[in-house]
């Protein structure tokens, strides 16, 4: 038995000892916990941990295997995301007990706080007394047993699982209904109660999902894909796209859903130019003359990402994209010495194997999120929002929610998945600070923690990101794409990439932290020229999503949401996926990334530098009054002419891999 006294050592030190005990198969007893946070997080061994007193937030969180007993009360999120194992709390639990569990037993003998079992997928949460507001909120599976009364809005927006209530149901949530339970189920519940010595003689009411909100109403008819240039055309008000939108909305009575990003023209990186005449100084040997290496993520002492150039693959999910596409991205990222990102929906073994550097993304629904994959990631990312649809959660239409995909994510197959937009345990900056600390404790402070921010109120958000202790920020402007979204949101919600980076830099300057928080800028970065402009503006790195997909065979039909992608990229249908030539497309993506490298190096060189970090705002001018207004750069419309004459539309491709 290992004894840990929190009156004498810090929680971090205690967690190191608890982990070591786990590896040795020894049980642990914790003394003087005094409601401190993060006790025992990140444990992946089946040992017993006894906490003699009350624990704070996320006790036993991000674990797989251990059995915890807590004598007193627990704070928010006890057993957060626990896979196998158990937690028994003799006192009360605060908000979101058993949030996002995937198989554990979480037993609270006293009362439980609001939103118990939010986004849980499997396992059992049992409450010996009364539950508070919105128990079972957005649960996807598993069961909640409440021996006392339920609280208001029970089972709000649940999509799977069952809730058994022994006392009174105060009120039901949206999409929840009371049904009869059969004797097998009752036996199973009683068996559970016996196992945890919870005497209860009464009967139960059972609450399940009504099934009414699991699918969009009204099927959007398939239309002939419109070429992107026509789709995004501005030549007439009542153009083909506008008409098509109106016709389809008039038939379905709701917004359209589509893939890709904003098609509406707005000021972008293409409205900037370098003062230096890049084409005139093109040099075959430029790569050996310029340093592009970028190290990012060591702000708080973690092992950083070490990128061969300031470019990442942007977060895109297995789900929106096929397995083959994700693996191709991973292969290409390794060939080019940059990082790949899981996006929402879990980490694939093949992807992990193929990617030298992999960022693991944590979203509000915690779909596929787990401690074991955290521990094998090179960085973890908290997704707050994305540029294409800031403020909204992910969307995956039923055709893509296959049995396999649903199993990885822990959700019912075949639903129109609308992921939650808000993290269960991050309702403010204060909560976010505690969440980050949980991740750091669970990964022993070894890997960088980053945040994905869709551009909204960037000036405020960047300050919060700085204060709560992220290692870097991935800032995503509204030209970013997505696999499925309400089309009107894509077009009209968000802040353009150009304005986003300006707001971010100004926000940091306002709190005297300019240069102290690395920014990865994404959202419509189309090539190395755009990347160079982003870096010169003040970003530390960039990321490409759509461009990488196009390099890997996407034909930009914007029908990603449908799930029948003709080139096997945005699909989960094996027949369609077959069309995707994984190795060949990986090579294409790699070649595109190398063309970016060439462009970056050429621009750095043309500006008279030997390191990409030397690019700066003085190197840039704005070609339009709008871009000048947004960036504060000198307005130099005369360079527009030069861009046209000396940099023909296809000049960028002349730098392709030899």
């Amino acid at each position, binding site marked *: 038995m290992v004894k840990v006294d929190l009156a004498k050592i810090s929680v971090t030190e205690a967690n190191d000892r608890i982990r070591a005990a786990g590896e040795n198969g020894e049980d642990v007893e914790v003394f003087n916990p005094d*409601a401190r946070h993060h006790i025992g997080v990140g444990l992946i061994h089946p040992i017993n941990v006894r906490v003699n*007193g009350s624990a704070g937030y996320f006790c036993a969180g991000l674990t797989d295997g251990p059995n915890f007993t807590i004598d007193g009360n627990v704070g928010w999120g006890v057993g957060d995301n626990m896979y196998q194992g158990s937690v028994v709390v003799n*006192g*009360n639990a605060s908000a979101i007990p058993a949030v996002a569990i995937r198989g554990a037993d979480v037993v609270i003998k006293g*009362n439980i706080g609001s939103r118990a079992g939010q986004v849980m997928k499997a396992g059992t949460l049992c409450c010996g007394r009364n539950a508070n507001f919105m128990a079972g909120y957005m649960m996807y599976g598993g069961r909640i047993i409440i021996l006392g009364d339920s609280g208001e809005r029970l089972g709000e927006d649940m999509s799977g699982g069952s809730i058994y209530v022994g006392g009174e149901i105060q009120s039901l949530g949206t999409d929840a209904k009371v049904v009869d339970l059969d004797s097998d189920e009752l036996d199973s519940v009683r068996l559970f109660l016996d196992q945890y010595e919870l005497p209860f003689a009464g009967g139960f009411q059972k609450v399940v999902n009504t099934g009414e909100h699991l699918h969009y109403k009204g099927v959007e008819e398939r239309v002939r894909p419109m070429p992107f240039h026509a789709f995004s055309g501005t030549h007439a008000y009542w153009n083909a796209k506008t008409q098509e939108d109106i016709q389809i909305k008039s038939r379905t009575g709701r917004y359209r859903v589509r893939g890709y990003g904003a098609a509406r023209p707005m000021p972008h990186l293409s409205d900037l130019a370098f003062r230096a005449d890049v084409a005139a100084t093109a040099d075959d040997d430029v790569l050996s003359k310029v340093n592009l290496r970028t190290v990012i993520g060591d702000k708080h002492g973690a092992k950083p990402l070490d990128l061969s150039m300031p470019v990442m693959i942007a977060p895109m999910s297995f789900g929106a994209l096929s397995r083959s596409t994700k693996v191709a991205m991973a292969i290409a990222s390794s060939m080019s010495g940059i990082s790949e990102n899981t996006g929402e929906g879990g980490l694939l073994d093949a992807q992990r194997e193929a990617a030298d550097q992999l960022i693991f993304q944590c979203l509000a629904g915690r779909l596929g999120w787990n401690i074991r994959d955290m521990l094998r990631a090179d960085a973890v990312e908290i997704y707050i929002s994305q540029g294409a649809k800031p403020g909204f959660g992910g969307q995956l239409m039923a055709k893509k929610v296959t049995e396999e995909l649903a199993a990885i994510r822990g959700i019912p197959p075949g639903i129109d998945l609308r992921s939650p937009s808000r993290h269960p345990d991050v309702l403010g900056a204060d909560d976010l600070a505690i969440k980050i600390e949980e991740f750091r404790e669970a990964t022993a402070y070894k890997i960088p923690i980053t945040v994905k921010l869709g551009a909204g109120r960037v000036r405020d958000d960047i300050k919060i990101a700085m204060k709560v202790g992220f290692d870097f920020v991935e800032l995503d402007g509204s030209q970013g794409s997505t696999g499925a979204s309400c089309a009107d949101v894509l077009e009209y919600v968000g802040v353009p990439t150009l304005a986003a980076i300006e707001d971010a830099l100004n926000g940091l300057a306002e709190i005297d932290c300019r240069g102290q928080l690395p920014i990865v800028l994404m959202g419509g970065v189309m090539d190395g020229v755009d990347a160079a402009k982003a870096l010169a503006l003040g970003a530390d790195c960039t990321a490409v999503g759509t461009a990488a997909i196009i390099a890997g065979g996407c034909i930009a039909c914007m029908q990603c949401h449908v799930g029948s992608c003709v080139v096997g990229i945005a699909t989960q249908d094996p027949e369609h996926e077959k069309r995707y030539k994984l190795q060949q497309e990986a090579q294409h993506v790699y070649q595109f990334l190398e063309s970016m490298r060439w462009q970056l190096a050429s621009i750095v060189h043309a500006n008279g530098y030997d390191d990409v970090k030397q690019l700066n705002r003085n190197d840039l001018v704005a070609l339009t009054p709008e871009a000048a207004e947004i960036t504060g750069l000198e307005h130099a419309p005369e360079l527009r002419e030069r861009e046209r004459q000396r940099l023909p539309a296809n000049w960028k491709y002349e730098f392709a891999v030899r």
Partner: protein
Amino acid sequence: MCGIAGILYKDTDKCFNVGQSLVNMLDGCQHRGRDSTGFALYHKSTPGQLHLRFFVGDDDGTAAAIGRVRNILDEFGAVVVEDETIGKTHRVVVKFDGDVQKFAYALEHGAKLISIGSSLDIIKDVGTAHDVDESYHIGGHQGTHGIGHVRLATESDVKPEAAHPFWATGFADIAIVHNGQITNYWKMRRRLEQRDFEFRTENDSELIAVFLAEQLSRGIALETVLEQSIDILDGTFSFLVSTDTEIGYAKDRLAAKPMIMYESDELIAIASEEVSLNRLFPGETLDTREPLPGSFATWSKST
């Protein structure tokens, strides 16, 4: 976005280490915000006397600010009984029995007024609980009750005056600390401004102070005002209020911001997190209670 704490000892015949208790509680939840820390403490009141505290800075302008305050005190015939310049503030005890609201609004022209009360004294500054304790000797304060706050600035500035607690300018002895975000801030602020209430910051929490004070000034009981606040305020909130004799809380219906309390025969303590309560009783397992969504309560000194 913040952490809050409040404590009230029920036995009014004695004095307790309220200052040290609040410093410990706030240190316990400092991870919720490190930008600034503040305390609302209550001194023993003397009839006819008011405690005033101003921000005067600690630079070249300090002497001038104190001079301006002096002139206004003279104008209103307020006689200085005691004064002290400490940290970035100047504290004055005066004899005064006129209209406090007019007095307060006038004094604002001299220097930034932090609080007025027959017993209230708000002390707040940038930095942690320990930083503020070191500069202002909070730990030595003896009393019966008080509230405190640690702040992580999200939308308004990191300045001492944007720190909590907030005093409802013009209304003696009322202070609030708030965790959350009031989303109908501008609507309510304009309504109150039309009734000649003045605001000193753009911090949404100041609105709660002004709203409560306005209601209390009409003679409505604190408990009733808290009940109304749950309907009238929109957004997320867990807030604490203190007067010269009471403390109370209100929590929004969505229960978005945390709050937990411990009550014994001796005291009531409320905080954002149990870790703060445990700071008062190290090594003990406390029988705590989480307030229900949309609930409120008050406790008064057992006079």
